[in-house]
């Protein structure tokens, strides 16, 4: 079966104006209908995006707990709320997400240290989509294992205030940092 394509090739060849042909294309001809295909490919890699507080990469927020002795007695066991909550965003395209939190050393003060177990995190003021981890290096559970997409929540922090410590500032930007790690398994 000769086609329009072959005919025109013949003609163009006779006219000595054949142009260099590239290797791909789909074409067809017909009396009443003709079709040609085009393929598409989109490659989606694994990725995880995790944000706590300031969305600018590298900017680390500071949460402060003040036990002033006037409103709450030090070591009374009554939790002290942090001065700010943090927005948390986790976006991933794989399921089975976990979040782990590990303190860098202890909350060091002038004479004693405060253990990370004295710092608690809850998301009762948020959506509940991102259960916070315990600051012990172990991964949390409870994130919807079937979900793929973006999750957001609000985490609030408390100093449990169960121990008695000498006056001073504990932790800070160098000895009071927690590294949160989100992982898509």
């Amino acid at each position: 079966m000769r086609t329009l394509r072959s005919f025109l090739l013949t003609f163009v060849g006779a006219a000595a104006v054949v142009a260099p042909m590239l290797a791909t294309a789909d074409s067809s001809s017909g009396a009443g209908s003709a079709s040609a295909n085009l393929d598409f490919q989109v490659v989606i890699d694994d990725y995880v995006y995790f944000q706590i507080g300031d969305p600018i990469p590298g900017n680390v927020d500071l949460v402060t707990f003040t036990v002033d002795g006037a409103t709450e007695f030090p070591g009374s066991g009554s939790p002290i709320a942090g001065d700010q909550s943090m927005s948390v965003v986790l976006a991933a395209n794989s399921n089975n997400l976990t979040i782990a939190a590990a303190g860098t050393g202890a909350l060091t003060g002038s004479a004693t240290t405060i253990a990370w177990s004295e710092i608690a995190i809850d998301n009762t003021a948020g959506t509940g989509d991102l259960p916070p981890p315990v600051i012990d290096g172990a991964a949390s559970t409870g994130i919807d294992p079937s979900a793929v997409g973006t999750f957001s929540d609000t985490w609030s922090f408390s100093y449990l205030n169960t121990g008695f410590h000498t006056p001073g500032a504990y932790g800070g930007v160098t000895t009071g940092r927690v590294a949160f790690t989100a992982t898509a398994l």
Partner: protein
Amino acid sequence: MVVNRLLLIVFLLSFSLRGHALLFSVSPGAPFVFVQVGHGELSNFGLFGAPVTQVDEVTFPVPPGVQFGDGTPIVGTPVIPIAFLGYSGGNQANYLVTMDSAGGLVNGNGDVIPFSELSWTTQDGDIPPGQFGNSANQFLQQYNFRGNRARGVVDYLTFSYANTATYPPGTYLGRVTYTITNL
């Protein structure tokens, strides 16, 4: 097909370019339609010489700094030439061009990105810009013609992936079929 019985004489000197519309003078014969999607150096008449069934593929490389699902469109490569041609044999012809994008783009796990995530712009405007509609019979273009000439349209399409949604990882493949029909 009866094209082989036609005494088609294509007068290159009458090859008329208005934008990238094509107009060929031919002798009377049976009507036909023709479509080509993909590379073939259209401007040098490679339109008629490219291999049949070797389908071009558009890929979407992710630029640095762009995250999947962040809403930053990702431009596809390469730019795709596309051409439609019809000859009516002197009769009134009504050419309809449609697209079938119903299948979506599918990865190895069966996850699907709908073709509506893909849109295109055109170089010359002879073919309208648009967005795939995930249907088997999406309208692209329609034009009428009468005369002893073959009339067609050529343009160059640049595709974009909208990147507005999050999809599981994988290599997603999909095919769109362009069809020209003489109504």
